[in-house]
Every structure is written in structure tokens, then in C-alpha cells.
């Protein structure tokens, strides 16, 4: 079925048609990118809330669907929402952990961590200890393989700032890697 044009006047039929178009577009987007986005949220530091963060991002996209420039803008929009929500969550946890005793929650379960080598675990741990902007820039660059402009859009900063955050983050991680090479 052809999508209902936005130019048509609002009637019960056109509104229902647009709702159906939005649902099917979101379903396609969800099935194609959900797992990747959950992984992105996890790597950014959402830990066990990763699925919840991604679900919220999809709800936000559903609400703001009409405001999208095009359907191609949906994925960058989702990434930006996820980056933002994970950042808020991490800040909230930092405040909470100042006041209560906290047991560290790892990226995945102990069983699945067995698949990750010690050097890789150390590298990811070092990545997680970086300032949030540097961590975000590195995950978006080296895991999703995004370009600087796309990373800038996801993080809501300039491309120049992305370059600076990436360079600083890599310099800090370089020290961890050098330590591993020495061992």
C-alpha cells in the first residue's frame, strides 16, 4: 500500500493511514536496528537499562515522527536520543552512588564475560572510566564506525569537538594498551 501523503487534508481516513504508515516504518526500523541500538546503549554505559533506554528512544521517535525531515533521519535521531538518555542515566547513577554503597555491575553477565579476553576487558574498563564525551565519541567511532559529522549529530556537538574528544580518549586508552604490551 502506498504511503499517505502529508499534503492530503486531515480526514479520518488520511489520519488512520498516516498512523499505519508510521507503525510499519517503525516496525521495520525496530527489526533492523534494535539489537544494534541495545548494544550501543550497553557500550555507552546503560548496563542493564539498555533495552529500556532503547524502548524510550523508540517511543520518542513515535511521538516526534511528523517532525522528522525524512525517514532516513530516523536512525540518527534514535542514536542521538540514546546517547542523551544514557548520559542522563550515568549522571543520575553517579549522584546515587555517592550516597549509597554500590556493587559494580559489569557489561554482561559473568558467564558471557568469559568470552571476552582479559586484555579486552581491561580495555573496555578503561574506556568506561573515560569522561562521558570521550567514551561516546570512541564508541560511536570505533564500534558503529560513524563519520565525524554523524558522531557530532548524535552527540549534539561540533565536528571539531568530536575530533578533540576522540584524540584525547585514544591518547588515554593508548597508555592502557602500552601497559598491556609491556606485560
Amino acid at each position, binding site marked *: 500500500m502506498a504511503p499517505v501523503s502529508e499534503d492530503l487534508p486531515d480526514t479520518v481516513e488520511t489520519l488512520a493511514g498516516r498512523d499505519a504508515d508510521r*507503525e510499519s516504518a*517503525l*516496525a521495520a526500523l*525496530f*527489526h533492523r536496528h*534494535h*539489537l544494534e541500538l*541495545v*548494544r550501543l546503549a*550497553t*557500550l555507552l554505559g546503560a548496563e542493564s537499562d*539498555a*533495552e529500556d533506554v*532503547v*524502548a524510550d528512544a*523508540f*517511543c520518542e521517535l*513515535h*511521538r516526534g515522527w511528523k517532525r522528522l525531515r525524512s525517514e532516513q533521519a530516523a536512525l540518527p535521531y534514535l542514536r542521538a536520543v540514546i546517547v542523551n538518555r544514557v548520559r542522563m542515566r550515568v549522571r543520575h547513577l553517579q549522584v546515587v552512588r555517592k550516597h549509597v554503597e554500590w556493587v559494580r555491575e559489569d*557489561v*554482561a553477565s559473568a558467564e*558471557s*564475560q568469559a*568470552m*571476552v*579476553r582479559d*586484555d*579486552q*576487558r581491561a*580495555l*573496555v574498563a578503561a*574506556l568506561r572510566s573515560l569522561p562521558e564525551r570521550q567514551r561516546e565519541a*570512541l*564508541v560511536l567511532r*570505533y*564500534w558503529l564506525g560513524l563519520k565525524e559529522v554523524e558522531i557530532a549529530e548524535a552527540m549534539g556537538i561540533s565536528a571539531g569537538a568530536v575530533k578533540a574528544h576522540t584524540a584525547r580518549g*585514544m*591518547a588515554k*586508552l*593508548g597508555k592502557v*594498551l602500552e601497559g598491556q604490551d609491556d606485560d
Partner: protein
Amino acid sequence: MTTSGEQRLEEALRTVAAEVTASPGAYREVQSRWRRKERRRRLIVAALATAVVLATNGIALWALNDARPDQHIIFTDPTQTR
């Protein structure tokens, strides 16, 4: 950091990411969540619209009720102002 360092970071991120899985019923859950939010949003809009209409009607009825029968409070008679 060297290119090999970048490769090691990519590999580590790939390995850790590969361990993350999504729950099988995720789509149904998210779909029901966005539908519930949409219903609530529409309900709030409808309630606000109803409240505005009721308030406007109330003010109009109050104004009409308080006016003298010979006084026009909605349309002013241009012949009266001359």
C-alpha cells in the same frame, strides 16, 4: 594511538557488544508502550480541548446572564456611537 591500537579497540568493542542480546518479546513491549503513550497524549489533548470549550461557554453564559436585556455585549451597534 596506532592503527593496531584502533583495531584492538574495535575488536574489544565488537566482542563485548556480541555478548549483548535483546529479549525476544521486545517489539511487542515497545509497541504497546508507544501506543499507550499515544493514547494518553490524545486523551490529555481531548481533555484540555473540552476544558477550554467548557470554560469559554461558562464565561459567555456568565457575561450574558449579567448583562442588561437592552445592552449588546457581543455586537456593538454602530448607530449608538455616533
